[in-house]
């Protein structure tokens, strides 16, 4: 009997290699995200000296690099349809980041938004990527 893939991301049918690589990406993402939050709070609360704060920021960035490397490996080794879906999603996220970033820059330069709002561009990029992956996997299932 043929198995029907009913998961939203269509990942149940992925080869073991892809599942392992995806797990690595998820683990590094969580570590990066948690460390980012901890470092942000620690700096805001003044728990760290300047040197320690710089070291903590660098450490967090290294977790980010590890996440990127894990994602790069996932993209390189995943099967071709998944790669196509991911690359399409990356292209959309990049476009939104570019347009959103330049729009934000224009607004910021003219004092129409505060610098803190820049995080919205990243949120838009992440949402665009995630929704594009979900739609892509649905389209080809």
């Amino acid at each position, binding site marked *: 009997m043929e*198995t029907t*893939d009913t998961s939203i991301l*269509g990942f149940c*049918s*992925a*080869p073991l290699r892809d599942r392992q690589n995806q797990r690595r990406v998820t683990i590094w993402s969580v570590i990066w995200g948690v460390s980012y939050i901890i470092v942000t709070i620690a700096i805001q609360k003044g728990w760290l000296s300047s040197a320690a704060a710089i070291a903590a920021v660098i450490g967090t960035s290294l977790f980010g690099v590890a996440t990127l490397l894990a994602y790069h490996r996932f993209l390189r080794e995943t*099967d*071709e*349809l998944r790669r196509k879906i991911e690359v399409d999603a990356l292209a959309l996220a990049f476009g939104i980041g570019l347009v959103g970033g330049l729009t934000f820059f224009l607004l910021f330069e003219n004092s129409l938004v505060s610098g803190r709002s820049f995080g919205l561009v990243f949120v838009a990029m992440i949402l665009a990527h995630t929704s594009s992956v979900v739609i892509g996997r649905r389209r*080809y299932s």
Partner: protein
Amino acid sequence: VKNRLKVLRAERDWTQADLADRLEVSRQTVNAIEKGKYDPSLPLAFRISRLFEMPIEEIFDPEERTYPIQAEARTQDLGHEH
């Protein structure tokens, strides 16, 4: 590109998951190729060809056919150009 993947798979009594394992791709990829939603890359097409021990053109069929009369007309056009 149309293909006979589903028929060839059924002849061997393989599930999509079986074929996906043999081709080292996801079941979703096999499903998308069978439904004509996705055209495989050349390396994957060759793997499919080797697996079924058939030439690629017996498995995949480009929908845009060049019929003999069109080919002849094209040859004549080229002749006039020279």
